[in-house]
C-alpha cells in the first residue's frame, strides 16, 4: 500500500468505472432520495413532505411501519439462522473435500452448481421438490407422518426457505474455505504430525487461523445476500402463508412496483440500505479492531 506511486492521472483509468457507477448507482439513488422527501397527489404533481415518510416507516403503529418492523425482524432472524447453519456447515464440508487428484474437479463442479442457477429457478426447484403431492421432499416428510405443508404452515414455510437457502448458498462458504485450506502449505500438516497434534488440534491451531480472512468475506457476503433475499422466497411462498416469509425486499417491491407508493417505498429503501451498510461496517470494524489488538499484544 505504501510504496504506490502518487499519480493523479490515474483518475483517467477509473473514469469509465466512475461513469458507469454514477449512471447505474448514483442517479437512481438520487431518484430514491428525491421521492423519499416528496408526496404526490397525481401524476407529476409532487410536493415537499420532509421526513414524513421516514417517520411512517419507522413508526410501528402505522400500517407501513408495522409491515416494516415485522419484515425487519424476520430478515434479522433469517440472516442469523442462515449464518449459524451455513458457516459451520461450509467449513465442515470444505474440510471433507479432496485436495488432490481427479476427484477435485468433479466435486467442485457439483458444489458450485447451485450458485449458477437463476434465483427464480432455485425457487422453482424447491417449490416443486418440497410439495407434498408431486415433490420428493414434501412427499417423504409426510410419509414419515410429519405434518408438513409449506404453503399452509408458517413453520413449514420457514423451514423450507431456510433449507432452500442452505442448499443454495452453503457452497459459497465451502468454496471460500476450500480456497483458504488449499493455501496452507503441506509442511504445516507434517509439522503437526511430528508434534503429535490431534485432528481437532490441527483444525483449531492451523486451519481455523488461516481461514480467518476468507471467513470474514464469507460472513459478509452471506449476511448481505441473505438480508437482500427476494426472488427465491417470492417464487416459493410469495411471502406467505399470510406474511410469515415476507422479507423486506418482498415488502419493498410490493410497495414500489405493486402499489406504486413512491414516497414510502423510497424512504424504506434508504433505511434498508443504511441498515445493511451499518451492519457491514460494524462487523468489519469489529474484525479489524480485534485483529489490530491481536497484533499489538505481542
Amino acid at each position: 500500500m505504501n510504496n504506490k506511486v502518487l499519480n493523479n492521472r490515474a483518475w483517467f483509468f477509473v473514469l469509465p468505472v466512475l461513469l458507469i457507477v454514477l449512471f447505474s448507482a448514483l442517479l437512481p439513488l438520487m431518484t430514491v432520495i428525491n421521492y423519499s422527501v416528496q408526496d404526490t397527489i397525481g401524476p407529476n404533481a409532487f410536493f415537499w413532505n420532509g421526513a414524513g415518510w421516514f417517520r411512517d416507516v419507522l413508526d410501528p403503529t402505522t400500517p407501513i411501519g408495522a409491515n416494516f418492523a415485522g419484515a425487519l425482524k424476520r430478515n434479522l432472524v433469517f440472516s442469523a439462522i442462515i449464518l449459524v447453519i451455513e458457516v459451520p456447515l461450509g467449513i465442515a464440508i470444505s474440510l471433507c473435500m479432496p485436495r488432490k487428484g481427479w476427484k477435485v474437479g468433479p466435486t467442485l463442479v457439483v458444489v458450485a452448481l447451485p450458485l449458477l442457477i437463476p434465483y427464480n429457478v432455485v425457487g422453482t426447484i424447491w417449490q416443486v421438490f418440497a410439495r407434498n403431492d408431486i415433490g420428493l421432499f414434501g412427499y417423504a416428510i409426510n410419509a414419515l407422518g410429519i405434518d408438513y405443508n409449506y404453503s399452509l404452515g408458517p413453520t413449514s414455510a420457514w423451514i423450507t426457505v431456510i433449507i432452500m437457502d442452505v442448499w443454495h448458498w452453503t457452497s459459497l462458504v465451502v468454496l471460500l474455505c476450500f480456497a483458504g485450506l488449499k493455501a496452507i502449505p503441506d509442511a504445516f500438516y507434517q509439522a503437526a504430525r511430528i508434534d503429535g497434534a490431534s485432528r481437532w488440534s490441527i483444525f483449531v491451531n492451523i486451519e481455523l487461523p488461516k481461514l480467518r480472512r476468507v471467513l470474514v468475506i464469507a460472513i459478509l457476503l452471506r449476511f448481505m445476500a441473505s438480508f437482500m433475499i427476494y426472488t427465491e422466497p417470492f417464487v416459493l411462498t410469495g411471502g406467505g402463508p399470510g406474511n410469515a416469509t415476507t422479507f423486506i425486499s418482498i415488502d419493498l417491491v410490493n410497495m414500489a412496483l405493486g402499489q406504486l407508493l413512491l414516497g414510502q417505498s423510497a424512504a424504506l429503501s434508504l433505511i434498508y440500505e443504511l441498515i445493511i451498510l451499518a451492519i457491514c461496517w460494524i462487523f468489519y470494524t469489529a474484525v479489524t479492531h480485534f485483529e489490530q489488538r491481536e497484533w499489538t499484544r505481542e
Partner: protein
Amino acid sequence: MPGGRITLDGIGHSYAGPGASEKDYALHPMHHVWEQGVSYALLGPSGCGKTTLLNIISGLVTPSEGRLFFGDRDVTYLPTEKRNIAQVFQFPVIYDTMTVAQNLAFPLKNRGMPADRIKIRVGEVAELLGLTGDLARRARGLTADAKQKISLGRGLVREDVSAVLFDEPLTVIDPGLKWELRSKLRQVHRALDLLMIYVTHDQVEALTFADRVVVMKDGRVLQIGTPVELFERPEHTFVGYFIGSPGMNLLAAEVKGDHARIGGQEIKLAADYASLPSNVPIQIGIRPDHAMLAPDGKGVRVRVERIDDLGRTRLARVTVDGQNLIATVPPDLAVPSGEAGVILDPRRIHVYANDRRVEGAVR
C-alpha cells in the same frame, strides 16, 4: 542411547507403487547406517530424492520397499508422531495463535506431559536456542530466523528425540543471519550429541555444517564422505563436478598403464591403470587447484581463452585439444596469451571409467 542410530535396510521408494520400472524410482533401494551423534548433510540438485529420503526417515512417506530401523526397532510402518525424531522444514512452521512458549510446549502437551515439567523443558530449550526473551511474545510477529528456531525448538523440546532432520532450513533466512543460525545449529549439535540430517542443495552449507556429506543424484547416493574426502577423492564425476567452485576438470582421455593421452599429448599419472574396462568412456579428473598455469613449453600445451580475476586467485580458462580446462594462475606468473602450458600434479589426477573412479595400482 539405543535409538540414536538409524538403519536403512534396502529402503527405496517409487511413487508408482510396486512393479514400477527403474525410472519410476524417486529413491533407488539403498543400505546405509546413520550413526548417532554425527551430523550428515544430504546434498544434491533439486529432484534428486533427498527430501523423499528425509520424509521416509521422519515417517511422512512410507517407503515402497525396504525396512527402517531406529536402533534395533523396526519403525517402517510406525506413524510419524510415534517416532522420536524432529523435523525442521524449508519454510518456518509456527502456530500463529500461540506465543513462543506455547509453541514450544505444544508437542509436550500433545503427549500429555504434566505442566510443571513442560515449563522446565521449554525453559531449557529456549535457553539453548536463545529464545528466552521472546517466550511471552506472539510467534507470528517474529522474524524468519526466530521462527525457524521455534520450529527447531519444538523438535528438541521432546526428551526422547534422538534425531533432528532439516529440510533446507535456511532458504528463507536473510543471508546475514544464515551463518549465525547455522553456527547455532552446530552448537546445538555439540551440546545434545544428536544425529542430525540436513538436506540442502548448497554445497557451502553442506560442507560447513556436516561431519559427513551424502551426495545424491537421480535417486541414488553417489558418495558418502567427509568434506575433505569429497574434495580430494570424488568417487563419481558428478561429485567432482558438483563439489567445489569451480568443479573438477573432467577430460576425455585414453589411459594406458601410467599414462593418459589427450590429443597426442601424454600426461603422467601416479598409478598404473592396467585393467580398465573397455568400451566405456574414460575420463581423467583434476581440481583447478592442482592444475597450474605455466609458460609455454612446460607441462601440457594449452590455449588460453580467458583469465578470470577473482581477487585472491586468478583462474585461467584454457582449452586442450578442444576440451575446456580451468587452471590456477600462480600469483607471480605473467599471464601468457595464446599458447601456454599447464602443469598437472600426477598424484591429484583421478581416472574415471563410466563416471566411477578407478583405483590405480601404486608402484
